[in-house]
């Protein structure tokens, strides 16, 4: 079992052109993601969720602190941590299928095999017939799903998802939530999911982490088990009606609101 760790990590950006001045965006973040965990990160817009994910992915270097996998400091992005981007970041010169097959191509998998696997993944995210489409011919939600399929194709140890379901209608979203949950439990891929939906966080995650802004810091790290309940066949309505669910939902809402009040003060 692998663990992705952020230890006392902080991150500062320079203030505009004045590179001698910096603004602290993340402060003292410590977070461990084991490969059997599903962590959801929620927090207000601008609280540093994307920055946190960028650190875990290796796109940003922390100003202080360590980011490591199994104790070894990461040296930038790597095949063990696949990312689904907030802005899809699909390659316009490849069609939808080839975008999904891209991680397979990197591993030298043969063309026919690539095609099969990519089409399979596309079908799983509900895009059965979109393989030959150009990226600019896809709708916003379709692009997000291609991005998810592409990250899964790379078969990573950790999956880092930045609001991957943000542009989807309720039904498609619910289906993809189920799908992600299944991928996670089947393949033992540790997942770090950034979402703005408290409900989504609760239904998928084994732990919900709350980030408060200015500077971004972890104000709560709460275990949850609704995802496992869902997987074990419990109905959504049943789960949502349970007192634990209601309690946690209210608690998390309160945490984010509290932080907003403090903000206003």
């Amino acid at each position, binding site marked *: 079992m692998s663990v992705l760790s952020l230890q006392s990590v902080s991150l500062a950006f320079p203030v505009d052109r004045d590179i001698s001045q910096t603004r602290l965006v993340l402060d003292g973040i410590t977070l461990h993601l084991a490969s059997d965990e599903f962590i959801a990160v929620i927090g207000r817009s601008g609280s540093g969720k994307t920055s946190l994910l960028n650190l875990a992915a290796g796109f940003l270097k922390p100003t202080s602190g360590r980011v490591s996998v199994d104790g070894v400091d990461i040296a930038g992005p790597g095949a063990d941590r696949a*990312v689904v981007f907030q802005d899809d970041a699909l390659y316009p010169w490849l069609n939808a299928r080839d975008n999904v097959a891209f991680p397979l191509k*990197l591993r030298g998998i043969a063309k026919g095999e690539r095609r099969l696997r990519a089409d399979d993944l596309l079908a799983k995210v509900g895009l059965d017939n979109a393989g030959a489409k150009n990226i600019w011919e896809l709708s916003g939600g379709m692009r997000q799903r291609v991005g998810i399929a592409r990250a899964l194709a790379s078969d990573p140890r950790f999956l880092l998802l930045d609001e991957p379901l943000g542009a989807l209608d309720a039904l498609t979203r619910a289906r993809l939530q189920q799908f992600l949950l299944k991928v996670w439990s089947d393949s033992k891929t540790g997942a770090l999911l950034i979402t703005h939906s408290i409900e989504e966080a609760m239904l998928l995650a084994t732990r919900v982490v709350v980030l408060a802004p200015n500077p971004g810091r972890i104000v709560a790290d709460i275990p949850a088990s609704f995802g496992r309940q869902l997987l074990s066949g419990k109905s959504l309505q049943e789960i949502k009606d349970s007192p634990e669910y209601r309690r946690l939902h209210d608690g998390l809402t309160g945490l984010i609101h509290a932080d907003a009040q403090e903000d206003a003060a």
Partner: protein
Amino acid sequence: MTIEVGIIAPTAPVEIQPDAGKPGRGRGTLPISLVTIAVIIAAWSLASVYGVVSPLFLPSPLIVLKAIYNVAVNGFVDSTLAQHTFASLLRIFAALAASIVIGIPAGLAIGTSRIGKGILDPIVEFLRPLPPLAYLPLIIIWIGIGEASKITVISLAMLPPIILSTAAGVKSAPADFVNAARSFGASRLQVLLYVILPSAIPSILTGTRIALGAGWSTLVAAELVAASRGLGFMIQSAAQFLVTDIVIAGIIVIAAIAFLLEILARLLERWFVPWAAHR
């Protein structure tokens, strides 16, 4: 930004037409271009008929046409037009091939690696402004008077635009594209080949088009040295004896070939990088 089917071209006059959504690439610019060319030729004819410019320096279109025919059939300075053209085309393409083979990797190195940039930058910046007429003697001394020296002169003119455009193209590759590839385990080489290179291709194509123009305009200088054939050689020989009709004929042939190559380049662009219009 190009006129696409069904899309109101953002800056074209916007009128909703009955056939708006129908297939078709929008009205072309060819008719307007043909009119423009006709106007220019008409103005030229008038200028020579009314003797605005002495025929010694601006022979009428008809005389130039005759000269083209004559060179094509009887030749000038010992070779026919086809032979001159072929000789020059060989040099241009050899130089183009060399510039692409050297320029694109150099541009990629400058755009992607600190060490590459550190080493190549001063060299490129030094080569860029060199006047061919100044370094011609040095080229002769170093590589003699054979084809190699002519191709080198043309290449030296073609390299900088290709290198600069490649480097600029690399810089325009979105960081997320590179990050994505690396998070899927791409090696540095794979990032280069599969992400940075494709991102840079529209820019490289623009650079290549600029380079082709630069190459043609260096042709006369390149063929000043010990050529016995070539359009530049032909033009230069004619110019020395004030045979202006041949000079203009040569210029027109060069322009015509360059024009055809440009059309080819645009077709390639439309065919191979359709996504460039959709960024």
